[in-house]
């Protein structure tokens, strides 16, 4: 990083677009970017986006909208995030490794640098969240998977979480060796919309298993189309545990993940079906 010539500090999106290019390194919370590029001799410029007006959490039409510079701490302590989705957003954010990192790591950064252990991508997938991104000229709305497939360099400006899931049931658990581990064996992030005898919608997302969050529309579809009393919980749980196992069968914790996925999915489904 010693060969950089300039550090740009844009104060708004207009200034940002004037310096945004493929070659610049975007720096926000600094929990990842600075140290990763410390020895890079090719880097010529850095764009520090910390002054962009992207630190907000608000309710906008039918979404909770979270600015990309919001930190895990902002989200954990936000009144809106505690109130809606039964506090799921706040609860999930509290799992991020340590207070100091929660004070620094941003929603945007956590999504922009994919890693199996990142929490925000898992949360986004659970809530079908969308990302508003800026490509230097205009804004686009992308799903998370579209974002990961996006070839061009874009800046995440905010996440939009649909309020239609507000009254769903939620479950979040990160299993690791200690309570502040960054790594985890597996992360469970479940959402279910259950009404009397039917599942209107269900999303079971698994983190820490692949670089991006894992979920299965096929198995979910199976549950949504049937009456609750016809769903064999053991069978569904086994499908999920086999799926988790198959994703990384040679991993040293594959047996553990298989077992604990079975146990946890079974427990969750039994609970939401009132069994």
């Amino acid at each position, binding site marked *: 990083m*010693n060969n*950089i010539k*300039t550090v740009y*500090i844009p104060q708004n999106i207009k*200034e940002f677009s004037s310096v945004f290019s493929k070659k610049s390194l975007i*720096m926000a919370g600094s*929990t990842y970017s600075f140290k990763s590029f410390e020895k890079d001799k090719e880097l010529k410029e850095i764009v520090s986006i910390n002054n962009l007006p992207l630190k907000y959490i608000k309710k906008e039409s039918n979404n909770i909208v979270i600015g990309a510079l919001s930190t895990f701490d902002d989200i954990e302590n936000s009144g809106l995030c505690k109130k809606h989705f039964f506090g799921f957003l706040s609860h999930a954010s509290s799992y991020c490794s*340590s*207070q100091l990192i929660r004070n620094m790591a941003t929603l945007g950064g956590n999504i922009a640098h994919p890693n199996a252990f990142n929490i925000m991508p898992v949360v986004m997938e659970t809530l079908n969240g969308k990302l508003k991104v800026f490509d230097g000229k205009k804004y686009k709305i992308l799903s998370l998977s579209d974002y990961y497939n996006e070839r061009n360099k874009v800046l995440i400006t905010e996440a939009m979480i649909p309020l239609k899931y507000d009254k769903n049931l939620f479950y979040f658990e990160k299993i690791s060796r200690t*309570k502040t581990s960054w790594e985890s064996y597996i992360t469970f992030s479940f959402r279910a919309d259950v009404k009397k005898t039917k599942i209107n919608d269900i999303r079971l997302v698994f983190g820490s298993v692949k670089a991006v969050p894992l979920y299965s529309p096929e198995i979910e579809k199976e549950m949504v189309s049937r009456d609750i009393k016809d769903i064999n919980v053991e069978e569904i749980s086994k499908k999920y545990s086999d799926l988790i196992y198959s994703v990384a069968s040679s991993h040293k914790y594959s047996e553990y993940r298989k077992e604990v996925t079975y146990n946890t999915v079974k427990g969750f489904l039994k609970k939401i079906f009132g069994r």
Partner: protein
Amino acid sequence: MKKLLKNKEGLIEIGFRLNGTEIKTSVKPNETLLELIRRLGYKGTKKGCDTGDCGSCTIIIDGIAKVSCLLPAFYAEGKEIITIEGLGDVSNPHPIQKAYADSGAVQCGFCIPGMIMTTKFLLDRKPKPSDSDIKHALDGNLCRCTGYVKQIEAVKIAASKINKK
């Protein structure tokens, strides 16, 4: 637009406030904020791991406790930074410093400046923290000497002393 440029010596010139004093200095692009603070003579902030995992380099920047080993030195530009030296001194210690010293919470003392800075951050926004609030806020400050038992006590004592004032 605001820019930080390299000067003739290849250094970036920055200005910021450190413990209430205006500082104007020049930094290497790949220098960490921790290195800068120690280079300026503020040795209380420590390097325990240099990867943001132990918290001994914790300082308060614009009111928020952060690990300075992960931040570039140029990040300090325009900021208000407080280090352990800015809280108090032996002749006039801050209540948090006194509480830690009084409670047996200081053994080797290496993690303590970082712990105290995080404690200040906690008590500034939660003057009456519960036990779990305290543990949640200090979870990024590692200590191998004390097992945290007396440190959590120290935070509670500091909170009650500050609230009395």
